[in-house]
């Protein structure tokens, strides 16, 4: 069973968490187990830790990329 840890803002609803889990279930054929983690610094989006593989779809990462791009 593949374990996936989803980090979200505490303000995100359980429905949104479920939609994320459904999205990963469509992606991975094997059985999955999900863990939710809350991060108060998270602005929006989510970060998924798929057994070491980090998928960062957070607004924090987008802002960081934008900052790096502007500083170049």
């Amino acid at each position, binding site marked *: 069973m593949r374990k996936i840890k989803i980090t*979200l803002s505490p303000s995100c609803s359980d429905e949104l968490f479920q939609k994320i889990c459904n999205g990963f279930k469509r992606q991975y054929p094997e059985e999955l187990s999900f863990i939710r983690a809350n991060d108060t610094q998270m602005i929006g989006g989510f970060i998924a830790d798929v057994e070491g593989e980090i998928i960062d779809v957070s607004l924090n990462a987008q802002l960081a990329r*934008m900052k790096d791009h502007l500083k170049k």
Partner: protein
Amino acid sequence: MEGFVLSQAATDLIINILNIILLFLIVRALVYKPVRKFLDQRAARVESIKSEAEKALQKAKDQEEKYQKLSEENTERCNQLLREADKTASKKAEEIIAEAKKQGDDYLKEQREKIAHEHEDMLTSMQDEIVDMAVGISEQILKREVSESDNEKIVREYFAAKNG
């Protein structure tokens, strides 16, 4: 009697004449010749001294001319050395001035480059600060404004891209 007196006078005359002649001869022998010799010797000494004096004078004149010539040559040599020294000093001064100017120009150029780099660094630093501030403000705004529907949109777009 008259013959006797006349003969006496004649005799006296003759004797006087003989005395004079004898005196003359004696004086000539004893006085004139030595005195003459003395005078000749003195004249010769005087002549010799005069000759030596003239030689000495000529020698002195020759020496004077020689020293005068040497003095003129030395004066000319001194003037030449002074001119060469002046020329060398002028050249050295010009070299020093040129070197100082070059060092000054190099220093100015270095300082200008340094100022330009510092200005560029300062602008970059300010730019970075502005970016940090802008991103910070954006974070604050997004924290306040991002809604559930925005998060749903992010999730939807991610999985739509993943699934092709």
